[in-house]
């Protein structure tokens, strides 16, 4: 039996950054908002015993319970897709705050180049720079159009940074808080990259350098550099996350309710509109329909795509014909880099999730690609995020992986290693896409999402180019031994890489080539909005959430406008 509840103005599926931002903005405008979150309530008070690497970083305490739902994966269509049975390559969020609770806080604006990549590449390098298999396209919005929303998100978060990067887009205002502390390790990177003629700057950080009150009146504390940040919640309320900012801001209006243990399984569509969502109470397994005037999918890249697919909204992408847009342009990231082994010990165990310095000299189109067989690039950084002993066992090349020599080398080098790593852009390819799996189901009986993904020649060329740059920087840093990462082989879903999945519900200017318009409003249902890195038409050389946050503010404006005026916003 399904119980139909009282209708609300706006329902969001999931309460992470995107769901929280929609809630705060819409509730402040007087709209009644319900957030349906499959996970549990949690907050700063739950993190007083969080400095436990095994529980949080190794056993994934705060992340998605795969026994209930996962995805399936194969490298190509010749393989049989099989379930991702344990977490690895990326760590999906679950519970209040979503992945925003346990993120690092490295907060970037994608480059002006990213939003108009197709136009700019064609103009500068000709239309055949990449083969037609690479389905790059413009995003249907420019950096300048998005700038006010970047500004808004950064002020909500209180980003700590410095406007010293010559390669990023123009900012309408400086960072809300000054950069984090520049440690000895960061200075070493700064000196080396300066010597090589590059322009290092402090990474923009959501671990705040000082206490801050945001425009909503929410207070964020100063980071204590505790070293348990990435994969952990912050016990100080110093890592800006949805549950300490936008969620309480929404609640204070009296117009917002978060319903926990509510797993959405379908978006209900009638004609050219949606009427609400169907969900299970995960405790009792009762089924409910939550009607709403507007439905906003904020359930991360994977489930945003899956919910559209199982609800039969939009046309599924078919790699055979190139037809359809839903599931198209899934992209990821590559991680070229090099490590340096030093004689002297460093305080590697201290740090914060977004404590680092970066150069953008090889990101975007900052360098000429005329003689190169790839486009785009990578941000190159050295970070001090807090090394922990279970997952950090660095050994120089040639060391066995267990036994006496391994023990000695991994202990010796735990405090003697510093890495330089790139986050390389990822161009969409016609064979990299999302669809529904035909075999495996979640515990609600809904098909799993199927990921078809492998690295491409573009990835390999970019990877080796950036690896060389990173290696040269580590040498300049004076490392005793320099170990460059090996070449890219096949994408492997086992080792952790990044939770920077993108695409599948891409935005654009044309319903034939995108799923949502540039207010993230669905082309086929005007009261349905879809937000997340799934909107990215390709993945850039940075972490995604700064751009996701900007898009969420833009979308919130769209939802509010739609609620008043109706119709397509495109």
């Amino acid at each position, binding site marked *: 039996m399904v119980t139909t509840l009282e209708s609300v103005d706006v329902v969001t599926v999931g309460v992470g950054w995107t769901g929280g931002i929609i809630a705060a903005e819409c509730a402040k405008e007087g709209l009644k908002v319900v957030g349906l979150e499959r996970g549990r309530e949690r907050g700063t008070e739950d993190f*007083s015993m969080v*400095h*436990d*690497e*095994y529980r949080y970083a*190794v*056993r*994934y305490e705060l992340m998605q319970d*795969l*026994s209930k739902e996962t995805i399936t*994966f194969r490298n190509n269509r010749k*393989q*049989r897709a*099989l379930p*991702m*049975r*344990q977490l690895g390559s990326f760590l999906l969020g679950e519970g209040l705050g979503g992945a925003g609770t346990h993120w690092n806080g*490295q907060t970037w604006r994608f480059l002006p180049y990213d939003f108009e990549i197709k136009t700019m590449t064609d103009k500068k390098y000709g239309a055949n720079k990449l083969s037609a298999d690479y389905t790059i396209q413009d995003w249907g919005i420019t950096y300048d159009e998005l700038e006010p929303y970047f500004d808004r998100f950064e002020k909500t978060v209180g980003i700590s940074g410095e406007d010293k990067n010559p390669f990023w887009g123009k900012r309408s205002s400086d960072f809300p808080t000054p950069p984090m*502390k520049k440690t*000895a390790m960061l200075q070493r990177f700064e000196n080396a990259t300066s010597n090589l003629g590059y322009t290092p700057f402090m990474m923009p950080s959501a671990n705040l350098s000082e206490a801050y009150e945001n425009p909503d009146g929410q207070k964020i504390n100063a980071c*204590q*550099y*505790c070293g348990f940040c990435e994969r952990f919640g912050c016990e100080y309320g110093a890592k800006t996350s949805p549950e300490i900012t936008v969620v309480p801001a929404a609640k204070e209006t009296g117009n917002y309710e978060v319903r926990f243990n509510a797993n959405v399984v379908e978006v209900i569509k009638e004609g050219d509109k949606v009427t609400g969502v169907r969900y299970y109470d995960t405790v009792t397994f009762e089924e409910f329909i939550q009607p709403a005037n507007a439905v906003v999918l904020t359930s991360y890249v994977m489930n945003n795509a899956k919910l559209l697919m199982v609800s039969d909204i939009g046309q599924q992408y078919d790699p055979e014909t190139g037809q359809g847009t839903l599931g198209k342009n899934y992209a990821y990231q590559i*991680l070229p*880099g090099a*490590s340096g082994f030093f004689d002297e*010990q*460093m*305080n590697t*165990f201290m740090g914060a*999730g977004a404590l680092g310095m970066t150069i953008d000299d090889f990101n975007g189109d900052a360098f000429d690609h005329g003689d190169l067989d790839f486009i785009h690039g990578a941000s190159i950084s050295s*970070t001090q995020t807090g*090394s*922990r*002993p*279970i997952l*950090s*066992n*660095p*050994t120089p090349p*040639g*060391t*066995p*992986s*267990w*036994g*006496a020599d391994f*023990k000695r080398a991994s202990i010796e080098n735990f405090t003697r*290693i510093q*890495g330089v790593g790139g986050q390389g852009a990822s161009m969409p390819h016609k064979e990299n896409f999302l669809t529904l799996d035909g075999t495996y*189901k979640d515990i609600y009986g809904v098909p799993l999402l199927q990921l078809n993904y492998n690295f491409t020649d573009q990835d390999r060329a970019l990877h080796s180019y950036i690896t060389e740059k990173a290696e040269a920087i580590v040498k300049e840093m004076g490392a005793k031994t320099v*170990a460059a*990462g*090996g070449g890219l082989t*096949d994408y*492997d879903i*086992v*080792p*952790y890489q*990044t939770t920077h999945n993108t695409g599948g519900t891409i935005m654009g200017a044309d319903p034939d080539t995108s799923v949502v318009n540039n207010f993230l409003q669905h082309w086929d249902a005007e009261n349905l909005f879809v937000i997340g890195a799934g909107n990215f038409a390709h993945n850039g050389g940075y972490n995604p959430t700064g751009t996701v946050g900007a898009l969420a503010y833009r979308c919130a404006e769209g939802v509010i406008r739609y609620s008043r005026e109706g119709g397509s916003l495109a």
Partner: protein
Amino acid sequence: MYIQNNQLFNREVHKMAGKDKNFSRRDFLKTSGIATGALIGGGIIGGLIGANTNKQDATTTAPGTSGETSGSTGAVRGLTFFKTTAEFEAISQATERIFPEDDLGPGAIGLGVPYFIDGQLAGSYGENSKEYMQGPFFVGEPTQGYQSRLKRNEIFRQGIQLMEQEAQSRFEAKFVDLEGEQMDEILTAFQENEIKMRGVESQFFFRLLRQATLEGAYADPIYGGNVNMDGWRMKGFPGHQLAYIKDIESEDFVEIDPKSVGMNHK
């Protein structure tokens, strides 16, 4: 973010060196087991001594039955997953080969790793309670990861059985009675996927065992391993500290006495 050090994870096969001067199990008993016995409590030391040097004692010192308390906390150490001393001793020796005692400090046994693993296998780790375990099951590509229908604790149990079988067929002895190099030969065979396991590949078992050994050596002592925080001490890791804001800009390496997350809550 990403963990850069993963790239450094050396996948090279551990070379069997005949002249490898790894200490043998007997040396362990002489040099570390008894000397650090106070840290270890009832189970393993009793069991090891029983099995190796003093057969008459074996039945009276089986792990989990001695009820001996360790340290000042009054905690009792025993087995919650393994059912026989033999299984427990075999896994103990295997972890010690992976993470041996040396001049830097204790090895896996001295750190309580076998107890850590025993406890984990009895709980949600061993039962795969957060993993997707619905069928159908197929052998996949290595890039597709864990595809076994077996739970981790079933894989360990089978793996230990096969370690014993290999010890018998190769050396006509129990695994625990082998010399260190002989144990290494068997572990390397698992690592190189040369041992036929049912429902899972032996390299996967080895990877689990290696990883669990490191987890036991370095997890907070609240999980029963990393005894006396000696894993952290060796590595220069201070465990749970409230804040580093005062030291973060230091030019020099800062040595800090480690603390457990459990110390907050006494």
